[in-house]
């Protein structure tokens, strides 16, 4: 059996990649995809825990996460589209009307 730590390390690495992506990328869509990577990283650890402790809560949890992620995608893309209508760019650095 694959030890739990493998799941966790994988999950942590994926999560870190997602975080780093959010921090360094400028394209709103890409940033959002990085967030999705983070969510999926969490899914991995959830399922890993389940596998290890013989429970189902984590699996249910990960289903919920997927649903929520889907909902977030739909809303997120809608927002990006609305944004794009007003200002044809998805470069995050160009959105700082409000600051200080």
């Amino acid at each position, binding site marked *: 059996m694959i030890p739990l730590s493998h799941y966790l390390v994988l999950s942590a690495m994926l999560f870190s990649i997602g975080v780093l992506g959010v921090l360094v990328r400028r394209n709103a869509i890409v940033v959002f995809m990085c967030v999705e990577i*983070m969510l999926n990283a969490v899914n991995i650890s959830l399922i890993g825990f389940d596998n290890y402790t013989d429970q189902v809560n984590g699996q249910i*949890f990960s289903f919920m996460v997927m649903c929520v992620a889907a909902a977030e995608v739909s*809303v997120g893309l809608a927002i990006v589209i609305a944004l794009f209508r007003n200002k044809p760019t998805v470069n995050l650095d160009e959105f700082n009307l409000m600051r200080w």
Partner: protein
Amino acid sequence: MDLIPAPSIDLISLAPALVLSVFGMGVLILDLFIGKDKSILVFISLLGLFLTTVVTFAKGGLPVYSFQGSYVVDHFSIFFIFIFAISSALAIMLSVNYNRQENIKVGEYYSLILFCTVGMIILASSTDLIMIFLGIEIVSICLYILAGIRRNDARSNEAALKYFLLGAFATGFLLYGMALLYGATGSTQLMKIALALKTGKVVSKPLLLMGAVLLIIGFGFKVASVPFHMWAPDVYQGAPTPITAFMSVGPKAAVLASFFRVFVHAMPDMAESWILVLSIVAVLSMFVGNLGAIAQTNIKRLLAYSSVSHIGYILIALIAKNSLGSASLLFYLLAYAFTTFGAFAIVIILGRRGDEKLEIDSYSGLAYRHPVLALCMAIFLMSLGGLPPLAGFVGKFYIFSAAIKEGHVPLVVIAVLNTAVSFYYYLKVIVYMYMREPAGEFHPTLAPLSLLVVAIAVFGTLQLGIFPGPIISLAQQ
């Protein structure tokens, strides 16, 4: 043993969420069939909220658990539902005129508020990490949309985008925290987590601590505490004003309810660690919120920073982690709800299309043109500052009491010093209203519903300030 056990669902305890969901969907569907005039939707929404409140009190023999202990109806949650209903109702009432004025003709608007309220109810009643996650997401997704509901307004868009991206990012942290907590204790239910911690059946301490920190980040983001607050000023400023008001009260209260359950109820046995982190967060929130607010010239941003600092005070109630703490949390949030809605209502009333009057210096001389509005605004600001005989003072007194009872005197001293700092910017607004000559003309839109909101808020602020007894008894149950 049944293969498929019949879930024991207590419909009465679920009634508030159910009723409100039905109304929310009803509003959504009805919107398709009516014309441009959306006022019927307002009425139905308010009715829905009213009924929700009614059914909330239908349940006897508290606390009642359902879904194998994942969902609870107790005094705590009932009080919160009460707060949510009030804040949502006030938000809806404020929106009517605002939407007319800003030309927001979206029927979903009201149903989104209702759905958001459903999310809040779930959030406040959940005792399971999965449910909490669902609640948070219901609330958040509704808010993402509401923040950007002025689709043609660049600021609104920007607010929505920022809120959405950062919100999702924070969700990642929250979720990861939940996952680690689950992994460390082997359960997603708060009671079982508490039990596991108590009996020491923890898989891995580092995992647990990591999970707790991640949870703090997730929750901390949703309540806009430092250093996860940075979205708040921008989003508050960009979102439509009624939504700003709504956001700063209801959802925050809901998240705090859950925050409280997760940390105080589920993790009392590792309090030293999270109290330390939360203390830092609280202190930072107070400082950054107050300092940030001082330099603001936009009233909405000012109130945003002020709400950051208020989160700092509220977190002290969590840190106190005693029964006084929970009661003071409830009381403070209710007081805060009235006061904040009152302040935003004045902001909305003073604005009009094309001239929102959001800069503080546009308030110059308000007291001489509209003394009552100015007086109300002054009352709200002073209540936010925490001056007797207003609700904010009693709330602060309550929270500080809870903390001092636990011996957190230095924390409270920091808090009161911050209160003094906060007086500065609240006074600044009063200075403009009272002590400067009128600069321009005022054309307030004195819509009846908005004025009603002000009236309710003033009443609430004074009632809670001068005769807080009944509400305190209620909160202490």
